[in-house]
């Protein structure tokens, strides 16, 4: 079955702490991988994406993610978080060979203490 698992439901950090949010997926074939962010009361925004090539991808606002194919993982990282990073983060996957539906994880709520 196609699915995305985000193991952390709610993460609380202090400003300047390092962040790593876990994401594992189950999907047959070649995949595209995404991280989306949803700030309170706002819509989905794409943080970063992996289609092919370098498995370490850099996105906006200092975020990066690493695709480890052998582990079916695409963890999100940021070396030093800010209060403004408080948001819900969604990992997502779709098939690489066609414009297929995106399957989202259940999300991780990130709260940053100022």
């Amino acid at each position, binding site marked *: 079955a196609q699915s995305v698992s985000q193991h952390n439901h709610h993460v609380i950090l202090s400003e300047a702490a390092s962040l790593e949010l876990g994401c594992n997926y189950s999907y047959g074939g070649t995949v*595209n991988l995404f991280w*989306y962010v949803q700030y309170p009361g*706002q*819509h*989905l925004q*794409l943080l970063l*994406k992996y*289609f*092919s090539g370098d498995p370490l991808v850099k996105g906006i606002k200092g975020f990066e993610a690493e695709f480890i194919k052998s582990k079916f993982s695409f963890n999100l990282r940021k070396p030093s978080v800010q209060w403004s990073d408080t948001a819900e983060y*969604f990992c*997502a996957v*779709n*098939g*690489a*060979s*066609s*414009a*297929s*539906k*995106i*399957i*989202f*994880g*259940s*999300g991780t709520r990130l709260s940053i203490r100022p």
Partner: protein
Amino acid sequence: EPEVTQTPSHQVTQMGQEVILRCVPISNHLYFYWYRQILGQKVEFLVSFYNNEISEKSEIFDDQFSVERPDGSNFTLKIRSTKLEDSAMYFCASSPGGGLAGYNEQFFGPGTRLTVL
């Protein structure tokens, strides 16, 4: 930069009423999608649309739902007889398509919050 737009931003309706949610995808995109997010839950796929027909739909997308591209620019989602559990944020997305890396990125609209009373 081109973007997907959706109207209205918020729709309140009575249970049993019909609603139409509207989306204007990015020009020249070929694939169109509707997703929904019930408050506090994850985003779920509803339906995809290509070449004027549904290409895939989820089990959520039952007979009360329909989609249409009436005029070559708008893409609509109709809910025939709304239920309380239809209350959610509905996101439209579009993709250029083409099967190559980079052409499968879906661009999301800001969403329509549907409240069914």
